[in-house]
């Protein structure tokens, strides 16, 4: 056959289906350019050498992988809907005498051309936009901006290769679809009379069960550490539930509406309810995808924006004073109290030598032991903890013993505790009775100081697991009770924590320099003495890291949201276009039977509004349910601000809602045009 025949066939085939291929191509281009931007920022090294850019760059690097996976899935999905609409055309080719290999070659050319166009235009726009993205990125993570423009060769190569692989897989998949169909089948595809969907109660109930258990899980979780574990399980349950419910539940709903004669047989409801029932089965999955994407966007944007705006709060919570030092040693020995005093003296001397005026000094030590806390009793015995899989993370707790004299001295209180008694405090909702048992020792709870726990540990509410403070008469004597416990590695369970935090009155640079010097001093003192961890940090030095982390996350959230939103738009667009062509014939009939254009428009609007509102309403419910668990997760970052999170969520819902409404308007106009063009 003549050279150039196949490329020509491929081009004309795509041109004839321009209404379907143009949006597909635009999506491909967008995917390519965003992937390039991700890779450029995450891997090309433009961010190297920027203070505080490290964490954010890692985040964006993670985004690169997410983007690659999402692009693969989504392009696969879109391509398969595209090819469905063209089966008839391929059937015709094969009746005209083309064999499957010829058709395969046309498809190969098509895929190749799309890959070429998408990658070249995508890279061009990606390179063009990369500087803009870089500016936004550096602004968000508050690092100085470069003024040079660069193109990353490695990013270009990676993008080209990745999309070559994706499109090759798409090509194989398309050929597979064409190969297993005979011409007659291909030509009648899409025309075969379709059964009206039956209401499938079993699937509907199953969906409800999945969704319900996902919801309950999301609402039940109280502790951040279990939130981390259960979040993904809840998410998966909710996703499955949404799919099942939207696929079958909507049909059930329509069937119920149809049973209600006085509702169903009304001009406004008649046409929309029946055609909705008819297409819900097919489009339930599409609607569920839209709903899930919207939920992802909302959760991602509201959590990352809350983190970003609440950054200073997180910082203050994590580093309440300008300088913070910490040391930790497992086990017990008598020298520890004097070691603490010595450390304190070293720090204060060094600080004052630097010209610091030590204020708000909180230096104290505690003994800590962890275990399984249930019914006011901490189980330290390890046999019950050997099988990690069965641990209920909501019940893991840490007990901190602090001496009453030290508590009074450091925090300026006046409490007195007798032997065998304890003043108990926790920032978490942990049930504690009149006595508390730790290991084998019983303490009588004489008082609670829950509201003052934050003085000791400002992060207490956000701790991964509940922390319970016990103010005891003689902390050394108490600690000795727990020397015999050790974990499965043979390490002692008991740990000695030493904290010191204070303000200095130095300027930012002075604080940062001081923290560095103090780190050195602590290391000098403790090195080789069996301490498992020690450090000294400054509030100022950590700010950069916080801004970088949260800014990076926010940036990631924004870029991924854009991609998800565009995908949403495309799903909706294809749905409307294909339904428009289907409904064309239907509305022609209705016109003949006596429906005027006004009524058609009304019926179309009420139908579209319902279909459009469905996923949005679902997504908002999902968001509302997931928000508490997101709040728990944000606690791990040190953000304890539910109102801020809710405010961010509301703003995100508003923005996405506006955008969604705009899509609705545009697609409904396109749909009406198609429907009413029938005469």
């Amino acid at each position, binding site marked *: 056959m003549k050279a150039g025949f196949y490329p020509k066939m491929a081009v004309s085939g795509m041109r004839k289906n321009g209404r379907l291929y143009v949006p597909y191509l635009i999506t491909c281009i967008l995917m390519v350019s965003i992937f390039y931007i991700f890779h450029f920022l995450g891997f090309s090294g433009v961010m190297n050498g920027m203070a505080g850019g490290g964490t954010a760059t890692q985040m964006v690097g993670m985004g690169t992988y997410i983007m690659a996976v999402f692009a693969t899935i989504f392009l696969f999905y879109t391509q398969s809907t595209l090819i469905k609409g063209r089966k008839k055309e391929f059937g015709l080719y094969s009746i005209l005498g083309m064999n499957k290999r010829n058709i395969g070659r046309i498809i190969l050319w098509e895929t190749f051309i799309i890959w070429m166009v998408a990658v070249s235009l995508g890279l061009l726009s990606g390179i063009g936009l990369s500087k803009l993205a870089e500016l936004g990125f550096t602004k968000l993570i508050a690092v100085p901006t470069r003024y040079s423009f660069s193109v990353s060769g490695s990013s270009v190569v990676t993008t080209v290769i990745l999309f070559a692989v994706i499109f090759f897989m798409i090509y194989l998949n398309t050929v597979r679809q064409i190969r297993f169909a005979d011409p007659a089948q291909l030509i009648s595809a899409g025309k075969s*009379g379709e059964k009206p969907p039956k209401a499938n109660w079993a699937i509907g109930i199953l969906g409800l069960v999945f969704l319900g258990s996902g919801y309950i899980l999301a609402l039940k979780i109280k502790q951040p550490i279990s939130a981390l574990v259960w979040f993904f399980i809840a998410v998966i349950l909710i996703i499955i539930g949404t799919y099942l419910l939207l696929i079958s539940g909507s049909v059930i709903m329509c069937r119920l509406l149809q049973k209600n004669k*006085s509702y169903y*047989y009304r*001009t406004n409801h008649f046409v929309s309810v029946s055609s909705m*029932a008819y297409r819900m089965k097919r489009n339930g999955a599409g609607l569920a995808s839209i709903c899930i994407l919207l939920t992802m966007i909302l959760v991602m944007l509201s959590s990352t924006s809350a983190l970003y705006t609440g950054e200073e709060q997180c910082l203050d919570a994590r580093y309440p004073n300008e300088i913070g030092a910490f040391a930790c040693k497992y086990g017990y020995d008598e020298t520890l109290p004097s070691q603490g005093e010595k450390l304190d003296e070293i720090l204060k001397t060094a600080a004052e030598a630097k010209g610091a005026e030590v204020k708000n000094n909180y230096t104290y030590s505690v003994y800590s032991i962890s275990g399984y806390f249930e019914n006011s009793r901490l189980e330290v015995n390890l046999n019950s903890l050997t099988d990690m899989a069965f641990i209920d993370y909501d019940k893991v707790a840490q007990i901190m013993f602090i001496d009453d004299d030290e508590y009074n001295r450091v925090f300026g209180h006046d409490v007195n505790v007798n032997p065998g008694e304890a003043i108990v405090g926790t920032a978490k909702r942990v049930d504690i009775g009149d006595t508390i048992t730790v290991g084998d020792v019983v303490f009588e709870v004489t008082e609670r100081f829950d509201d003052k726990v934050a003085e000791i540990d400002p992060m207490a509410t956000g701790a991964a697991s509940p922390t319970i403070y016990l103010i005891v008469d003689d902390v050394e004597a108490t600690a000795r009770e727990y020397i015999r416990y050790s974990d499965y590695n043979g390490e002692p369970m008991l740990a000695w924590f030493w904290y010191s935090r204070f303000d200095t009155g130095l300027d930012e640079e002075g604080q940062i320099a001081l923290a560095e010097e103090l780190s050195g001093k602590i290391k000098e003192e403790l090195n080789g003495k069996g301490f498992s961890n020690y450090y000294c940090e400054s509030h100022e030095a950590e700010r950069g890291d916080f801004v970088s982390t949260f800014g990076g996350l926010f940036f990631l959230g924004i870029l991924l949201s854009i991609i998800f939103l565009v995908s949403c738009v495309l799903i909706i667009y294809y749905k409307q276009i294909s339904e428009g062509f289907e409904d064309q014939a239907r509305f022609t009939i*209705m016109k003949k039977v*006596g429906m*005027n254009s006004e009524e058609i428009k009304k019926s179309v609007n009420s139908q579209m509004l319902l279909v459009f509102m469905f996923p949005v309403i679902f997504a908002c419910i999902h968001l509302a349910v997931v928000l508490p668990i997101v709040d728990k997760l944000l606690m791990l970052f040190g953000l304890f601000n539910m109102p801020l999170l809710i405010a961010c969520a509301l703003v995100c819902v508003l923005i996405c809602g506006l955008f969604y409404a705009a899509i609705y308007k545009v697609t409904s106009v396109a749909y009406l045009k198609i429907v009413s063009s029938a005469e």
Partner: protein
Amino acid sequence: MSLLEAKNIKKIYKTRFGGASVEALKNVSFTVEKGEYVAIMGESGSGKTTLLNILAALDKATEGTVILDGMDLSKVKDKDVAGFRRDNLGYVFQDFNLLDTFSLEDNIYLPLVLAGKKYPEMKDRLDKISGTLGISEILKKYPYEVSGGQKQRAAVARALITEPRIILADEPTGALDSKSSDELLSLFKKVNQTGQTILMVTHSTKAASNASRVLFIKDGVIFHQIYKGSNTDRQMYQMISDTLNLLAGGGER
């Protein structure tokens, strides 16, 4: 006064850019009396479907008037046309035009629902006609589940349920096998005997021989008409065949 009166109907189709124009109907005039069963015959392209569309207010005549029961169709406002059609005309199509999203029952109710009727009233009306049409058993089925003949009977029910002044049928037997055609034609006859006026467009001699009067249309004009009078269907069939032969032979009026 006649139920339907078409006067000097002319229809000219223009190509989009004002090029050559096609005269589908040249000058058509005829009347239909109440209770009549009229068939319009003609070859493909003779203009008979155009005529029916004009009578059904689906299309507008370039010239001429159509008066249904004293109402001038050209005077009906655009936005009222659909309602007018719904209330006064029953249409039966060659390809049934049933909506696949509706059960047969709902398809039949469609015009009534659009007219805003209540369910009990719709049910009453359907109960009255479903027996005669032989569709009582299949009302809950969907169009794709039943045969062509059954679909067309449901379509007839949809046309009848509004109690229209006239039923317009466009090749109602065109998509049916001969047995279903016979059934449908006898159904039409039965319906006509209850006093329902029917105007049918067809090119099937068999179908036309059922009518009480047959109009022949050729090249956009009414060429000839014959009355059945007291003739049997068979005799009528012969008369129509003769006329068609004459037409095909290019004979002059």
